[in-house]
């Protein structure tokens, strides 16, 4: 599903050590979130544009990934202008949020979504990210599609028996059953998965096949990206 939806090898960006990409994406996101000047934001748009175009992602897939977040932002455009005495202040805020969110999203997509999830998890662990959170991340990526499939199966089972949603108690009750059943099944599945992992000697640590090497190319990429981020900081404070 979404996780590897836009994956396409990743081109040159995909060659950079995932640890570097994680750190850059994190620092970049924090900086953009605190940024409000037009010039620094224009400068900040260079990284996502380069990353996304270097990753050669299909435009359709890219839009599909941006759509949900922007749908939410659309709500802000409807609400914010009326939340301030001066309407233009509200509009300015809405615009700022739109630009920041999309820059951060594009950067995350361009830098991170091109990697296999396992590689990212490994990089997170190498960066001393807590073990439990890493596993949570990894297992979510793997099982959200499974739960989604289960949801589709249950919904189809409702449909073939003539279920038509409406504004009535029967509909609410049926949806409650659906959600309840999904939760129950997910819980039971998690137990079965855990057993299956125990059977293969799982002891809490995720061991992985490929080791991460920090190459000369990675050093060069870190230097360039670091300089870029410093440039962003300079623009903010000058």
């Amino acid at each position, binding site marked *: 599903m979404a*996780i*590897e939806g836009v994956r396409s090898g990743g081109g040159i960006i995909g060659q950079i050590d995932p640890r570097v990409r994680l750190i850059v994406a994190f620092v970049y996101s924090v900086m953009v979130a605190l940024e409000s000047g037009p010039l620094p934001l224009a400068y900040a748009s260079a990284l996502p544009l380069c990353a996304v175009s270097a990753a050669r992602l299909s435009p359709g897939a890219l839009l599909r990934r941006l759509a949900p977040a922007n749908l939410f932002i659309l709500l802000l455009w409807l609400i914010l202008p009326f939340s301030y005495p001066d309407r233009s202040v509200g509009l300015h805020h809405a615009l700022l949020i739109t630009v920041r969110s999309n820059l951060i999203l594009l950067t995350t997509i361009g830098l991170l979504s091109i990697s*296999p*999830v*396992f590689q990212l998890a490994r990089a997170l662990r190498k960066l001393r990210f807590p073990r439990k959170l890493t596993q949570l991340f*990894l*297992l979510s*990526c*793997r*099982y959200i*599609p*499974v739960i989604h499939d289960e949801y589709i199966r249950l919904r189809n089972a409702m449909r073939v028996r003539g279920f038509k949603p409406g504004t009535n108690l029967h509909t609410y009750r049926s949806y409650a059953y659906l959600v309840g059943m999904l939760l129950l099944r997910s819980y039971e*599945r998690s137990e*079965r*998965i855990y*057993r*299956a*992992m*125990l*059977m*293969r*000697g*799982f*002891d809490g640590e995720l*061991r*992985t*096949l490929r*080791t991460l090497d920090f190459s000369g190319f990675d050093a060069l990429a870190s230097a360039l990206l670091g300089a870029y981020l410093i440039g962003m900081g300079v623009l903010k404070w000058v």
Partner: protein
Amino acid sequence: MGLRPVVELEGITFSYPSRGKVLDGLSLRIMPGEKVGITGPNGSGKTTLLLITVGLLKPDSGTVKLFGREMRDERDFREARLRIGFLFQDSDDQLFCPTVEEDIAFGPLNQGRSEEEVREIVREVMRVLGLEGFEGRFSHKLSYGEKRLVALGTALAMRPELFLLDEPTTGLDPDTYERVTKILDSIDKACCIVSHDIGFLERVAHRIYRLEGGRLRPMFI
């Protein structure tokens, strides 16, 4: 050596709070290289029996011996599990890594094998399964039959001394069915195979039992 049983279950009793007693004084012994088939009605406790054997469920009474040692606590079982290949009924439970390769490598890496050795095992397992080139595929995008094969591969990859297989052939198309049967036939380790498919068990197993009323009854073949 080699003549002590791999599995020895004695007087196993187990009940579920909601289902009552499913196993009632069950005993089973499997010798090295011996393949035992177990069949029986739905809900008769076949999967329960496998889970008890590896310590994932605790019996109300009775003893479990694996590789000649009595299993007293979780620590004993943890050690023994590294020598057992377990195939679960639902492959989506077993395959939790994003890619096939990582899934096959998971068990051997936990056994503490070196990276090269694990790579060699992955290659070998993919060859045995006839799935060369599947290494980078996403587990959840595989077809049902492919998932079953890869799940079997995760068990094979551990190079176990004992296989516990829960319905290895259920729902497979004739080709995959044949492939799985051939692979299981070529295994020379002890196996305990749960299946509804008597024809299949007759082909691969040395002995077949029927689990009914909480106990195993020998079936004649």
